[in-house]
């Protein structure tokens, strides 16, 4: 049984149809890349998986480990192991990064019936990852993402992922706005979190990211559905030929 199963998903926002019968399976431990042109529904898929309420699902289902998550609030999905690394992480003024991480982790653990992580354990988990990602103690003391550069915000997303240890990580255009050095740091952070127990959905417009996060499988999204699936070489083919070949056929 796949860990994530998206079945014939139809989604609208403000009356506009974005996903149009999307079907997708991601196995446990698999890294699946989702590629597609602008407007193909990549970010919508990410938001719908995380439970953003502006989107209306009109048909279909999303199963996580065999269980439908569509009726669950975003926090319940997070407790089940869903994590979304945002394309545009928001600034949260007045909430210190450490407080935020600890509140989130303890809320998830509580929802799962686990005890709170002890302070030394928590600190160790944060510090280890932060140092790999080049996140300073000073950044951890600051309010979440406030005054962070684009690259710092993306690294902070990966830090959160490392602390929360999700079962399904959805990375929404994590490469956007990053220069090559920042991209390597972020990709390295993601690769360190690859595990047989963790599935990943890596959404990207460009093949470049997939040089660093090498996917097990590539799906091409166009006009709200998966139009082609293949191995990692599919990404290279898309890089060479572009998306034009898919633009017409899903209409």
């Amino acid at each position, binding site marked *: 049984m796949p860990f994530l199963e998206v079945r014939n998903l139809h989604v609208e926002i403000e009356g506009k149809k974005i996903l149009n019968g999307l079907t997708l399976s991601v196995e446990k431990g698999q890294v699946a890349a989702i590629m597609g042109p602008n407007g193909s529904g990549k970010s919508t898929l990410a938001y719908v998986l*995380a*439970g*953003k*309420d*502006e989107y209306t699902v009109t048909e279909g289902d999303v199963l996580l480990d065999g269980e439908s998550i569509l009726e669950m*609030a*975003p*926090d319940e*999905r*997070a*407790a089940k192991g869903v*994590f*979304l690394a*945002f394309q545009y*992480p*928001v600034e*949260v*003024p*007045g*909430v210190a990064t450490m407080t*935020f991480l600890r*509140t*989130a*982790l303890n*809320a*998830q653990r509580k*929802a799962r019936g686990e005890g709170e992580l002890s302070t030394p354990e928590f600190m160790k988990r944060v510090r280890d990852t932060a140092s790999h990602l080049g996140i300073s103690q000073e950044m951890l003391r600051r*309010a979440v993402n406030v005054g962070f550069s684009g690259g710092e915000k993306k690294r902070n997303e990966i830090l*959160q992922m490392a602390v*929360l240890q999700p079962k399904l990580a959805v990375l929404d255009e994590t490469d956007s706005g990053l220069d090559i050095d920042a991209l390597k740091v972020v990709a390295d952070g993601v690769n360190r979190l690859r595990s047989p127990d963790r599935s990943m959905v890596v959404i990207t417009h460009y093949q470049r990211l997939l040089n660093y996060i090498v996917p097990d499988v590539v799906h091409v999204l166009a006009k709200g559905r998966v139009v082609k699936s293949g191995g990692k070489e599919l990404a290279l083919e898309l890089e060479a030929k572009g998306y034009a070949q898919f633009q017409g056929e899903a209409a």
Partner: protein
Amino acid sequence: MNAEVRAIKTPAEQALNAAYTAARTMLPGKGAIADLREAAFQRFDAAGLPHRRIEEWKYTDLRALMREAKPLAEPAKAKGKVPALPGLAAGRIAIVNGRYEQAWGDFRAGPGVELSDVFAADQRNYRLGEVPGSDDIAFSLNTAFMMGGVVLRVTKDAKVAAPVEIAHVFAGEAAAAMYPRSVVIVEPDARLTFIESFNGPAGVDYQVNSALELVIGDGAHVDHVMIGNDGDAALRISTLGLTVGARATYNGFIYTAGGAVIRNQVFARFEGEGTQASIGGATLLKGRQHVDNTLVISHAAGGCTSRERFRTVLEDESHGIFQGKIIVEPHAQKTDAKMASHALLLSDEAEADNKPELEIFADDVQCGHGATAGAIDRALKFYLMSRGIPEKEAEALLIQAFVGEAIEGIAHVSIREALLGAAAQWLSARG
């Protein structure tokens, strides 16, 4: 023929008239004080209670909100306790039912700090009623009825390390009115941190009209925090009349969580060059609470900086008001004055009014204002929830952060922590 146009007096105005007539000769202070009372009462009598057609009181129609005037409070019969915020250590000066009650407090005057009853203080050193705002009708009512209070003086160069608290307490069971009047004088190059707190029981519709005269000398540094923890049925108007000398620092903060109808008024005047002033505020409202923060800041000397930063959280059908007026007088060049007021509306029925006014008569100045009112940012809430934080907790975190950003501006660590704790308490009671 002349026909005098005069509004019919409301029951509250009639009661205030009768109370003044009956109490006039019994109220403390003779001579100049009695003359001051009489002139103040005449101002009130001519104007009546302020109402919505008076611009400064547009949102707080006292004629409508104050249906009756409660009888003047009697002195407290038995000694009681002054409520205090947890963790807030300060030398307390208790003003109980409008009068200074030494035995209720634990303040000890030390080197550089003098304390006396407001009516016992040597009037040759200080004349009451000469601070800005003394013509205001609410301030005039306080002057007419002032019952007691203290004069706290910090002498030149004295640095008072521990905070001093002037704690106002209503200790009656039946509703009554109290009119405390205090004076704080901080002489040149002295330093003081002081708190003014307002406390009273829930369920009693007592009334408070307090006034504080604060005089800050050249080069002095004053941190002043007002904590409004009134009972839920209380009506309170508090006026601060403030003059600041040159090169001085004034940091004011107004925290309001209690009371049914509250108006905090600040009339400030910067009289010497190079002064830095900030006034912050955090207001937490629920039910049908009505809280009005009204500030009139006059830059009478050049080269002064003033900042106003107010934040209000509104639940249910509450009503929050911020009125800020900045006046820059003709010769006050190089003035740098800014104000900002932000309201977080947690209910569709809550109302926030922001009214900034700038009156600028000098040409080389920087003045600005900003105001916002809005609900909790959905994108922020989704971000927090996507990390596993349940909706109520996410909202609480965001509200706490919103208020916290205002409270963080308080320099004194234990006052800051106490208010952050009080705000967290308010949030957890929100349910």
